[in-house]
Structures are given as C-alpha cells and as structure tokens.
C-alpha cells in the first residue's frame, strides 16, 4: 500500500511527468530561438548594409600638378571667358593625361609593354576634365600657369584602394588593367594618391552611369527634405484637425463611422496604390510636373495622415475627462476646452506620432517610383517654394536608382546612401523617444 502512495506521489518523476517536462523545455527553447532568429536577422541585415556601404564614405583623390598651356585653352590670348568656352572637356583631357605621365616619369615609371599614355590618364575620373574646365573658366588668369589640382580617381582605382578590386579582377576587367594598378601603387608612394573622408558624397549631385566615383546624394537629400517639409506643413494640421473632430465632437452616426472605417483602411492600403493615386490625380488630372517634390509631398501626406490621426487620437484620449469637465465648469465652450486645455496637454504625444509618421514617409519608395522620381536629376532644385516644383530625387529612390546601374561602384554608393537614410531615421526616432520620455505624463 505504501508503494502505491509513493507511486502516485507528486514528487516522484514518472515517465509521463518527464515527458511533459521535456515538452515544456522544448517549448521554451522554441520561443527563445524565435526571438534569437529575429535579433540575428536584424544584426545580419544591419551589418551587411554597414559593411557594403561604409566604403562610400571614403574616396580616393589624386593630387597632381597640371600644366595649363595658353595655346590650347585660349587661342586668342585675351583671356575672354566667352571665347574660352569653345574648348570642350575633350580639350582638357589631354592636359590631365600629360600631368599623370609627367608625375609618373618623375617617380621613375618604366612604361610596360602595351600600355599607352591614354591608359595612364584613365586612372583619373572622367569627371576631372569637367572639373578642370569649370575651374579654368572661373579663374581665366591661371591659363599659362601650372596649378596643383585635386581630382577624383577613377571608380576602379577607388575600388582598388578600398580592396574591392584586386589584380586578378583587374586582369579580367576591361575597364582597368593590372599595369594601371602598378601605376596607382607608384603614385601612392609618391604621395599623390590618398583616401580621405568623402564629403562630396553628401553634397554633390548624381553622376552618370560610368562615373560612380562622382555620384553624390546632394539632390536626393534636398528632395527628401522638401518633401518632409510639405508633409509636415500639410499632414500635421489636417491630421490634428481630423482627430479633434473625431475624438471630441463627432456624433455617432453613419458619416462618422464611414470616416473611421476609411482611416483604418487607408492605414493598410499598399503604398504603391498611393503612387497610382498620385500619378492619376496629381500628375495626369491636376497637371502637376513629374518628379517634383510637391507631388511626392502630397502623396506622402495622404499616406502619413492615418498614422498621425491614429497617434493623435490616442494621445487626445489619454487626457483625462476631468480636464474637460473642469474647463466646461468654469464656463468655457466645448471648443475652448479642447483648444485651450486638451490639445496642449496632448501635444507631446501628437509630436511623437508626427515624427514617427515623418520617419515612415522618409523611407517610402514605391509611390515615388510611379510619380517619376527615378529620373536622372543632376540639377539642384531651386529654393522653396519654387523649388517644390523642380525635378528632384529622394533618398530611398536614389538607392533604388543606383542598384539598377551596371557599375559595381554604384552598389557601394547605394549601401552608403542607405546608411545616410538610416542615420536620419535613427535621429528622428531618437528625438521622438526623447520627447516621449521628457514630456510624457501619466494621469
């Protein structure tokens, strides 16, 4: 009899209990590993972007003495800028080539077989000739002198300096040869070639498909900034007004129901559908220009509105009714109680929601593709408000644009642009979190 009691004791581990405990352990392990998978995915994602993109923030520059012969650049000899404009960038390319050859000779470069001065000049970016021309036209007096000029290195040379390109790859690549890389090594020893932080990446405009080394985010950042301004100016007042009505004034009827259902559905409509709306209504029907920040801003406003409305309503709801009752009790109208008391108390929450909505809008890509923001834009848009109607790009669209190009240098640029985008997002979200910490009030 005593054995029977022992057999059914809670403390004895029977097979059944062991099985159940094992199942319990397994279950916990599943849960823990699910969380681990999520976090690992995040880490892999971020580290892949970082490792691919950090290169974009460094850039190889070549500093050379360039001779500017007067008989080539200014045939009349009177330093008239209008006449000097007749020399195109093709007239400047030989000068740069000559500068490379001259410096290489100084450093004791023995020209290998099969290499021409043209190949030597090709280690400098094609952008350099245009840069030199701009410089000469801006300072016509330098003609006839020898100037020290800092130029971008060719994209492949840049890749070599960053370890993306090596001699094996170069031997297979039609755009760069191992001999050119030997020359690069020589110039590095001579102190003419160095790698520095790349400010131009943040300020200069996009460049054509063969010059990844010159491509920058200037236009895209400005375009994104313009759109965020439009979104902020439109979405915040409209969103707040709509939420105040729905939360404080709306009677419960069909119309209010319809609005509520619409808002919750708009929040879940695929973003590309908003792009179709922008294309059909704003561009085709409203006659607005393509790839302009104003259209992008309007589309993003419509997308951000539900986010702002939902956040604002939550924060209006969190203001306790006693505040409203007190205001009404001392003779304020309903409108006064809302605008003088409830709204200021809800402001931090509204602001936080707005910033998060803006951050979402900043990363949105698909609708902008449809309204023509993928176009190649090299000109900076003018200052607002006219600039809102000029063509511009946007950060995420620029990333997409660069991934579609053939040159491998653009992959690095695209990842670098993602880093810039993520930095902006982190800043915005950090501000939102800080605001919430600083001003959040628990009632």
């Amino acid at each position, binding site marked *: 009899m005593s054995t029977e009691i022992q057999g059914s004791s809670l403390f004895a581990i029977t097979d059944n209990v062991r099985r*159940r*405990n094992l*199942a*319990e352990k*397994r*279950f*916990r392990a599943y*849960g823990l*590993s*699910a*969380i681990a998978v*999520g*976090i690992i995915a*995040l880490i892999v*994602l971020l580290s*892949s*972007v970082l490792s*691919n993109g950090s290169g974009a923030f460094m850039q190889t520059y070549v500093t050379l003495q360039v001779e500017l012969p007067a008989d080539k650049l200014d045939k009349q000899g009177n330093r008239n800028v209008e006449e000097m404009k007749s020399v195109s960038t093709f007239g400047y390319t030989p000068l740069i080539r000559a500068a490379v050859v001259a410096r290489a000779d100084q450093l004791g470069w023995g020209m290998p077989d099969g290499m021409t001065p043209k190949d030597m000049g090709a280690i400098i970016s094609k952008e350099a000739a245009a840069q030199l021309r701009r410089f000469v036209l801006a300072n016509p007096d330098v003609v006839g002198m020898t100037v020290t000029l800092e130029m971008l290195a060719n994209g492949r040379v840049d890749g070599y300096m960053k370890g993306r390109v090596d001699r094996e790859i170069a031997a297979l690549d039609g755009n760069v040869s191992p001999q050119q890389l030997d020359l690069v090594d020589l110039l590095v020893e001579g102190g003419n070639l160095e790698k520095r932080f790349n400010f131009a990446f943040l300020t200069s405009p996009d460049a054509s498909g063969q010059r990844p080394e010159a491509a920058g985010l200037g236009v895209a950042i400005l375009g994104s900034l313009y759109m965020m301004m439009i979104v902020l100016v439109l979405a915040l*007042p*409209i*969103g707040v*007004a*709509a939420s105040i*009505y*729905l939360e404080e*004034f709306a009677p419960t009827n069909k119309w209010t129901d*319809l*609005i509520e259902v619409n808002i919750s*559905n*708009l929040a*879940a*409509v*695929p973003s*590309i*559908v*908003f*792009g*179709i*709306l922008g294309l*059909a*209504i704003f561009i*085709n*029907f409203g006659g607005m220009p393509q790839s302009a920040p104003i259209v992008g801003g309007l589309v993003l406003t*419509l997308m951000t*509105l539900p986010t702002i409305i939902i956040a604002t309503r939550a924060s209006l709801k969190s203001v306790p009714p006693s505040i409203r009752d007190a205001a009404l009790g001392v003779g304020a109208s309903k*409108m006064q109680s809302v605008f003088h008391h409830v709204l200021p108390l809800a402001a931090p929450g509204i602001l936080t929601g707005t910033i998060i909505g803006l*951050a979402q809008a900043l*990363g*949105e*890509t*698909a609708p902008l593709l449809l309204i023509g923001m*993928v176009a190649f834009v090299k000109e900076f848009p003018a200052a607002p408000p006219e600039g809102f109607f000029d063509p511009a790009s946007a950060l995420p669209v620029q990333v*997409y644009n660069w*991934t579609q190009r053939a040159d491998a240098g653009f992959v690095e640029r695209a*990842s670098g642009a*993602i880093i810039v*985008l*993520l930095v902006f*997002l982190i800043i915005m*979200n950090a501000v939102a979190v800080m605001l919430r910490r600083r001003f959040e009030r628990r009632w």
Partner: protein
Amino acid sequence: MVFAVAAIGFWAARNRAMTSADGDSRALHSLPNYYGTNAALSAIVPSLAVLALWLIMQPLLIETSVSKLIPDAAISEDTTRSLMMSDVRRIAHGLDTAIAEGGMTPDEATGLRSELTNLRERLASVGVALGSDVQAEVLFAAQKYRMMTRRASLYMMFSVLTLAMIGAAYAWSRSDKDFRARNIVEKAVLALLISAASIAILTTLGIVMSMLFETWNFFGQYEATSFFFGIKWAPDFRGDSALGILPLLWGTLYISLIALVVAVPIGLFAAIYMSEYAGPGLRAVAKPLIEILAGIPTIVYGLFALLTVGPALRDYFAQPLGFSGGADSVLTAGLVMGIMLIPFVSSLSDDIINAVPQSLRDGSLGLGATKSETIRQVIIPAALPGIVGAVLLATSRAIGETMIVVMGAGAAAAQLDKGLLEAINPLEAMTTVTTRIVSQLTGDTDFAAPETLVAFALGLTLFVITLGLNVLALYIVRKYREQYE
C-alpha cells in the same frame, strides 16, 4: 487685399463690440476677439469662395466665346478647333510677354494686324516660339482673348473685394454686446474640422475613382476575361500583348506564402515567449530590438535581398543542388519579406495573447497543466481568432509589398503554361502584381496603350484584395476583443 480688408474688419468689429459694452468686456456675450474673428471670417470666406469659383469658370466661358470668333472656314483641314485654340492662347500669352519685356507697347499689341507685321519673328525675339505663321483670324481671336481675360480679371478683383467689404461691414454692423459671435466662429472652426476629417474619405474616393476610370479604359481595349483568366503575361508595347493576371497573382501569392511560413512561426513563438516566459529584463531588450525591424524602410530590405540574401542563396543553396538560377528568386524575396513581417506578427499576437484573461491561465495551471500545456491548449485556442486576424493583416502587407519583390524576385512572370514543376520551383524568378505596376508605369508611358493601362487594372485588383483581407481581419479582431471585454 482681401486679407487687408479682413484685418480692418477684425479691428473695427472688435472696437464696435467693445464700444457697445462701454469698454467693459465682461458685458459682452463673447470675448472681444471673437467679434473681430467673426468679421474677418465674414470677409474672407465668401470672397475666397467666389474667387475659386471664378478662377474655374472664367477660362471656360472665355474659351467658348472666343472660339466662336474663329469661322469654320479658317480651320484648315489638318488642324482642329482645339489646336487653333491652343494657338490663340499661346499668341495671347506671347503678346503679354512681349509687353512685359518692353518689345511692344500695349496699344501696338491690340492694334496689330498680321498683314502688316511679322508677328512670329517679333514674338520669337522675346522668347515665345510659334509653330507657324499667324492667320489673321487667329490673331484677332488672340487679341480678343487677351482683352476679355484682362477685363474679366478686373471684374473679378472688383467683385471679390466688394464681397469682402460687404461681408466685413455686415459682421461689423451686427457686432454689439448681445451678438453671439463665439457661436458663429466656433461653427466655422467645426466646419473646418469636419472637412479635415473628410479628407480620408476623399482620398479613398480618389484612389477608387482614379483606378476605376483607367481600368474602364483598359477593358475597352482588352478583354476582361482574358485579363482575369489569362495564364500568360507577355506585354509588348508594339501591340498584341498577352496580359493575363494569373501568373502575377501566382507569383504574389507564392512569395507571400513563403514569407508567412517564415514570419508566422517565428513571430508567434517570439510573442508567446515574450508575453508568457520572458522576465522584464529580456522583454525590455528583445521587444524594442525586434520592433526595430518594423521601422526599417522596405528599400533597405530590398537592398539586403539584392546584395546579401540573393547571392548567398544562389552560391550556397541553389548551385550545389544543381539549379542554375540568378540571384533573383521567389525564395529570396519570400525569406526577406518574412523577416520584415516578423515584428508585425509578433507585436499583434503579443497584444492578443495579453488580452486573454488571467483567470484562464490560473485555472489551467491550478488543474496541474504545465505552462506550455496551458499555452497550447488554453491560451492559443482562446486567442486563435485574433491570431488569424493578425496573420490576415500580415498577408495583406505581404501582397502589397513592392520594393522587396522589385529588387529580389526578378522580372520574369511565372510560366504557368510550362507545367507544374516550373511553376512551383522556389528558386525560379517570378514577378508579382506590384512589380508589374512599377515597371508598366515608370519611364516613358503612353496612357492610351493597354500595356500601360493594365497597371491600373492590376492596382485595382491589388486594392480590392488587400481591402478585403483588411476588412475581414479587422472584423475578426474586433469580434474577438468584444468576447473578453
């Protein structure tokens, strides 16, 4: 100008109200500023409404009356009346520019005869290019057009200003201490709030109308049945395209399925662990980390698919198995999309699991069940409707997702006519509805061709599908919440 009138009205009405109360604001019905605001609103609202109406109507009316001036005989065979009218507008605009730049005096512009002057050259000199030499009738019409436009703008300015003044004066005359200015101002503010709230409806209406209209055009050119039931997608801008939606739908659903297979177990288990097992320390670290995944823009996931996941799958998975696909594949897009959806599923399920009443857990544990048994046999069944709703919402997200599939899934449509094996190979590139919308609508587009218009039909299909899923999911979630409240 209108605003100046409004400002004067504000000040005058406020003063009049104060005077009527002998300078004692306590005797007024409303605060003094309400009287002013009322006057300003009475000045601005009607005049701006008339201004907007006028700006819409004026070109229409002038166009019709001017176009009557051009006799039918003057319209040569290779043009139409509307083309002539655009010439008229351009010349009128050119004359204005010429005057503004000092190339012409106003008298000259009204007195010009095309027989006497070479208008084309003169306008070209100020930068207005005309396509051909100017006919006498067209020039006459253009001059008439200019005159009418100028006169109309003059009338418009006059009437708008008068209206503003009348409005301000009326409000001013009504301002005394018993006048309920606040009520009127608040009504106006309320109207503003209502119109802001109605923008949501307008947006939905805009979406539906814009797509319905173009889809209607599309079905005028392309058979609806072959769109909905066609199994071949091969657009060709030279015409004779096959535009069946089924291959695209299959690609979309297949990728979404893989994404859900990744996201639902991981998200669900993460949510269960976080709400039932994790201590506050782990929860405080893990929850925000996973939610960061939700804040990352989709373009970043797209780049991740393109640069990391795609090549990795190709080199370590597809090629050893003997498949020779590119980096773009259904599996790439599905996996990355699954990662994107993890936080979506986990935070929704977390909310739902937390909403299950504690008494159910206590009851089950009290009967001797282990924690995992409680979760599997009590909590999950209780939370099931909510979880189903969360999965439906995630599905709708996956179907509407664009950038990941544009960058990771490839551009070739699923080959439904090549047999089952081809259609279900996850290492094959497959295109989706969203990808096709992007590619048909970017670049140079011709809005008369069915190859472009099909994008609107695709968009409408996408909208209807996601809308249906969302409504269903919200309905289920709401029903479920009511059950425990």
